């Protein structure tokens, strides 16, 4: 079972930041549960085989005050994909620092190696005001401004700053299926 973790404070953002991810997973015929981090419990974490932590809107940063709600990431040893805000959360749990950097819209980035089917130069959709970089991960892709895709050194954790549910949906499909 795939566990989708929502971080939107304002529920109406579900349609923009969560539903498109659910639609991609539905097409793979994979079972999933989708829940806000406030409603997350140990049973869901135990039953999950993989986790996706979604992003949220530019003005919605309340999850940054709730990083202690994600300390389970220190022990979880199955694959996790963080998207935008999800990437911030993973980086902060793993001792990273938050930096201000806005990128909005289509941007070319460079992948140094294969990342769920991405390689070389790819156009991605950006929507962020911050990024987080942790020493616990390798940077796989960068824009001219900041890291865009990372892989954790000690765990099967991956994160992207851009939104693969908008462009490059195969990242999510490949994460789910492989």
């Amino acid at each position, binding site marked *: 079972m795939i566990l989708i973790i929502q971080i939107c404070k304002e529920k109406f953002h579900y*349609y923009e930041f969560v539903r498109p991810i659910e639609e991609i997973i539905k097409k793979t015929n994979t079972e999933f549960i989708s829940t806000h981090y406030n409603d997350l419990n140990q049973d869901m974490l135990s039953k999950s085989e993989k986790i996706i932590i979604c992003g949220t809107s530019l003005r919605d940063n309340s999850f940054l005050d709730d990083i202690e709600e994600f300390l389970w990431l220190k022990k979880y040893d199955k694959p996790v994909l963080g998207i935008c805000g999800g990437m911030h959360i993973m980086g902060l749990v793993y001792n990273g620092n938050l930096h201000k950097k806005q990128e909005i*819209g289509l941007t070319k980035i460079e992948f140094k190696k294969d990342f769920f089917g991405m390689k070389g130069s790819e156009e991605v959709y950006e*929507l962020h005001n911050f990024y987080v970089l942790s020493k616990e991960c390798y940077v796989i892709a960068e824009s001219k401004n900041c890291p865009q895709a990372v892989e954790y050194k000690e765990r099967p954790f991956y994160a992207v700053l851009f939104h693969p549910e908008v462009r490059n949906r195969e990242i999510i499909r490949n994460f789910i299926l492989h």
Partner: protein
Amino acid sequence: MKVAVLFSGGKDSTFAAFMTKNHGHDVSCLISLISENPDSYMFHTPSISEAGKQAETMKIPILIQKTKGEKELELKDLKVVIRKAKSEFKIQGVITGTVESAYQASRIQKICDMLDLDCFNPLWQKNQFELLEDLIKNSFEIIITGVFAYPLDKSWLGRKINQDFLQDVNKLYEKYKINPAGEGGEFETFVINCPLFTDRLKIKYKKIRGKQNSWTMEIEVK
């Protein structure tokens, strides 16, 4: 939350307004841009001048901003009118009916962020067939007011979005990759009635113009 809906009078922005109300938000005003440029990158529908009558039947105030429709200048006009909505109606967020356009979405996101407003795109990345099904299921009465791609022609003007339309557009999607909900700019639409309206609008005048695979039907409603 008090919000403004960027409103063209077509199916997507009207459905976004409907979803917004259903989620308990207060649609404090609508915002429409009337572009003098028929090839505007951001805003154009053949019958946008009638948006005021739709607003009237929804009993929601509307702010109308004229724009020359030049590429980045029209964004300045959009910013001006969103700022006005913020000061007049104390809105905290802006709603759009954007489905696919990264160009449109990213520019509106930037403007909202500059003005300290949240931006909601409830139809973002929605499957276009599901969108049409949702419109029919929720009793939206929508007519086609413009067609802009082969093999669409004059005969599509005035057609309603119903199950027959869905079947026909499905065939065109399979054969010509026509986007079923017109997201590639293939169709323009106008909402005649929906659950937000207190009265159904009636067409009192229409003017059809065009050639080959580019036709518009300007309408006046009452």
